[in-house]
């Protein structure tokens, strides 16, 4: 298997409070990995460890995270975040910026100069995010004027603009209506041709629909990690089966 991210013996802490225990996962390239588990199990903390955002909120980690075989826990977090774009639960376009500038902002911050080229990159990203057809005539409109589903796709386009290798999605469709959710799920399916995607979701059916592999977390432990088809048909652990069947507790 071609491994994009290799996580070994990862512990995460908030102060002295340990929230992830000895997590080891190999994440294959160009696949979608769903992270599932009840609230407080460490799903979001796990993805935030990957792009070093856990440290931003005062957390610490132990263990190893390798991206393409290179350790990233000791690298400048800004460089890591260029390689790992993130999309959050609630769409968060920059409120004062137009649709165009929302996507271009990352490019500008990274010193991407030429305006003509920038327009091409913005168009490409909006197309990749399946938003271009809906906004191509309103690129100067404010990002906040879009619908919730469009805003979320705008955020995905913004994340794609800096040309990441991995996309981290923390419940990207949980605040969206079913049609917007379907668009995001279709988008995930298309994007995995070029990106490795890790998606945190509370929606079991969504995990089953979009992901190739699923990891089940519970109280900071990785209970089971396997092909999604196996997790949702005949998981190895009873705890996993109880959870996916909705009989947990």
């Amino acid at each position, binding site marked *: 298997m071609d491994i994009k991210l290799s996580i070994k013996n990862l512990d995460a802490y908030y102060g002295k409070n340990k929230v992830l225990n000895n997590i080891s996962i190999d994440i294959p390239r160009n696949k979608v990995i769903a992270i599932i588990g009840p609230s407080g199990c460490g799903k979001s903390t796990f993805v935030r460890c990957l792009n070093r955002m856990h440290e931003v909120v005062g957390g610490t980690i132990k263990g190893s995270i390798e991206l393409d075989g290179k350790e990233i826990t000791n690298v400048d977090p800004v460089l890591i975040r260029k390689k790992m774009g993130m999309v959050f639960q609630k769409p968060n376009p920059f409120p004062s910026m137009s649709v165009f500038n929302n996507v271009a902002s990352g490019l500008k911050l990274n010193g991407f100069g030429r305006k003509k080229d920038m327009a091409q990159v913005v168009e490409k990203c909006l197309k990749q995010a399946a938003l271009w057809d809906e906004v191509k005539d309103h690129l100067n409109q404010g990002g906040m004027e879009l619908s919730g589903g469009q805003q979320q796709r705008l955020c995905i386009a913004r994340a794609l603009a800096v040309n990441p290798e991995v996309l981290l999605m923390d419940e990207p469709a949980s605040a969206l209506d079913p049609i917007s959710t379907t668009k995001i799920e279709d988008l995930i399916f298309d994007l995995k041709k070029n990106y490795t995607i890790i998606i945190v979701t509370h929606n*079991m*059916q969504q995990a*089953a629909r979009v992901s190739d592999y699923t990891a089940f977390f519970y109280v900071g432990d990785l209970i089971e990690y396997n092909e999604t088809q196996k997790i*949702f*048909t*005949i*998981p190895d652990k009873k705890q996993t*089966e109880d959870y*996916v*069947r*909705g*009989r947990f507790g």
Partner: protein
Amino acid sequence: MQEHYSQEIERLKTNLIKMASLVDDQAERVFNALETGDVELCRGVKPKDLEIDAYDNLITTQCENIFALFQPVAVDLRFVISSLMINNQLERCGDIAVNISQRVKKTSGFHSLIIESGILEMGQKARLMLKNSIDSFIQNNSKLAGEVILNDEEVDKLNKHCFNYLVFNMQADNSLIEPCTHLIVLTRHIERLADHATNIAESLVFYVEARLIAHQNKHPKLPEE
């Protein structure tokens, strides 16, 4: 939601058990008629089959509702899938019981032929297979289901033996052509009953052990795309 879901699954199982009991009663009745030659036992078999058909519709609807409303996964998904498959097999068993009752009526005057041909022995084995397949479902007993599957070959052998015996008798005595033809059709029904019992047992193994065991070693597994 969780309790509601469990209740739906429980209701489905209860209805399948009720349907299976009806089918078992029908089989019991027609095989007793075959064994004793008492055609009166066949009375009421056909009307009772309508109730089995009604269960077929009820269970299909219940499964559809569970798929649509609860999106079952893992063992629950296998239970609903196997319930659909078992429901279909039980409905066919009900039809076969009716078919057997019709042939029993037409061959009641040829009891010695029934005994000598080995049809009774074949019927008893198929009857036991059906009973055990139903029990395996009620008890979630995949070991018992495995025994049912193994017995199918024996019924097939007995079917061949009965067929050869009846053909021999038709060749030897023209007056036996009609009853022997009815009995050949009867053995065909019994053989199919054993096949359906086998299918029920295979569905039970799929539910309990998550293994597809039907049609094994007959053709290489096909790729999904």
